[in-house]
């Protein structure tokens, strides 16, 4: 069974420690939600695992199927099965979605293997239909001039095409209207069935998303650590009470 193990992970930006000893194991097929106040290091965690060069791992390890990914380049990590749905996806003028995704699919093929173009488009269109993305989008430049919701849908489209083992989804619900939220959630849920279901780390601020994508576990992240874990009812509790009580519990425990 594929899994991602995050072991006592420490991450700094420059000299500033952001993530301070974080432990978490995500198995394929599971959904783990991470909630927590702004600035606690949720995006830092996700981007550092994906290999973003701005972040330095100062301690601990991240293992995918038992193998450390820390020495791998970002593209190698992706090809070995990691996927990051960005909180703020980049706009890439002049590069069409079709060409971009084709390059990503081709990068996963063996040397000399030819891409079956008609099969590729068939798959792409099927995923787009599911996510209610107009087929005209294939010729549009990646995220260029997309609305907030279109960008997020495009992230899920990429995830659907690349079939990762582990997906880190950073605030995929932000910027989505109610209908788009349901469509995106359906898109994710469609990938949760079957043997190729990814393990998902779902970073969110809102309980609402968790009504649609029901998590197996909910974790609260605060000051670079996971300070509380529970099942989906923890999200409801946070929604009702805010973070203060978690902070106080944490302060009392570490005092």
């Amino acid at each position, binding site marked *: 069974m594929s899994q991602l193990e995050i072991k006592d992970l420490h991450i700094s930006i420059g000299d500033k420690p952001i993530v301070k000893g974080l432990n978490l194991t995500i198995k394929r097929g599971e959904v783990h939600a991470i909630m927590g106040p702004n600035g606690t290091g949720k995006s830092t965690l996700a981007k550092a695992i994906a*290999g*973003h060069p701005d972040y330095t791992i100062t301690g601990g390890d991240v293992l995918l199927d038992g193998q450390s990914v820390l020495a791998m380049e970002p593209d190698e990590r992706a*090809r070995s099965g990691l*996927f990051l749905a960005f909180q703020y996806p*980049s706009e890439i003028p*002049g*590069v069409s979605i079709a060409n971009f*995704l084709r*390059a990503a699919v081709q*990068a996963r093929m063996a040397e000399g293997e030819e891409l079956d173009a008609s099969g590729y488009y068939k798959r792409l269109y099927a995923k787009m239909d599911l996510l209610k993305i107009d087929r005209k989008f294939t010729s549009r430049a990646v995220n260029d001039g997309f609305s907030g919701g279109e960008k997020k849908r495009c992230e899920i489209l990429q995830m659907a095409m690349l079939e990762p083992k582990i997906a880190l989804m950073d605030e995929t619900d932000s910027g989505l209207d109610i209908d788009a939220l349901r469509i995106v959630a359906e898109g994710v849920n469609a990938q949760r069935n079957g043997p190729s279901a990814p393990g998902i780390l779902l970073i969110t601020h809102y309980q609402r998303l968790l009504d649609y994508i029901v998590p197996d576990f909910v974790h609260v992240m605060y000051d670079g650590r996971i300070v509380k874990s529970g099942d989906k009812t923890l999200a409801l509790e946070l929604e009702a009470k805010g973070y203060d009580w978690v902070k106080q519990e944490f302060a009392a425990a570490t005092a």
Partner: protein
Amino acid sequence: MSSPVSTLSKLTGSFTAEAFAAHLARVAHLPSWWLDRQRAAYARFVELPMPKRTDEGWRFSNYTALTLDGFQLPPAVKAEQIAHREIGVTGAGTLLLANNRLAQHVPLAPALAQQGVIFASLQHALLYHGDLVRSHLLAQPSKFGSDKFAALHEAFLEDGAFIYVPKGVDAELPLGVFHYACGDGAAVFPHTLVIAEENAKVTVADFFRSDSASGAQAAQFACGGNDLYAGHGAQVTYVAMQDWSRDTLSFQFNAIVARRDAKVLSLNLHAGARQARHESFSQLAAPGAHSEMLALTIAHGTQEFDQRTLQIHQAPNTSSNLLYKNALLDAAKTIFSGLIVVDPDAQKTDAYQSNRNLMLSDEAEANSLPGLEIQANDVRCTHGATSARIDAEQEFYLESRGIRPAQAQELLVFGFFEEVLGKIENAQLHDTLANIIREKFKS
């Protein structure tokens, strides 16, 4: 004190009086007015000095590498000897020139020929359409300080392509011209002359290649030119693809004349050569004329691409739009020097000039000298130059999808070029351009 002989040989390099005499002997059958012009041009070539450090027109360029030694007028080659790939354009007709001679001619579709379209070698045109050639061939002055090399081109020009589209005729499919240089040391002088009469429409694809048999490293010399003339209401699309061997010294002189309401779109792709200088001179000669000047450069290794442009607005209500994009890898170098000139009575001119450089390496060097010279008061002119590194977030985004760094850079270069590539509507031509760029990432 050096003897006169050694001074002379220093100025002519391989292009000695003997070489010129040999050239003249080969073109003796051409009209005397033309031979007189060639003789006069050779005399100018001999007299003019090589560029030097203080020449404004050579600012930033590696003028010391402009050696004319070690080349020769190459022997004839047969079309079958060339690894010719018929790419990009098919159907409408092809001219293949190799080592300054016509090597193959796939004639025009009969329907076009019947309408009076002429697609022939320049020698054929000199012999049978002398007046047309006389009024348009190399009729514009050299404007950028390359008079010596322009004279060399005129003196040694042996054959080229001639395209004439009469009044009201739409030539539809692109006409393909291939210029080959074959063999180490080969000196070639390609030329393409395009004349579109009133309301005519034509698309020309002009390829510059070294025969692959002589290897990517063949040291060659290319000194070419093209004249584009768009008559009243004519539409000319001209796409040039420079893909000479990596050790070629290349000059290309481009002159555009757009008459009333004419539209000219020229796109130059620069991929080959060791050092390549491209000069483009656009004249907006009558009201309503428009010139779209586009260029894409993909520079790698230690290649140097030197681009000099001039957009002259000579009449009111004319417009021009220049967009030159360079992608620089390794220790490559580019120079862009552009000038917009608006004559006093060219009111309501709308002129735009932009040079953008995408830097993919810290060792690469992009130089930009944009300029304006406006003598009318009611005009809209903008110009600018930018240089930017590849965007690290964009690169990470692509790589986070499993795309390898080299491929990610290639995609970003294509993204950068798309603004220009997207203007080429003909799908075959578009793909051909893209393939040449893609090849550069493999070498």
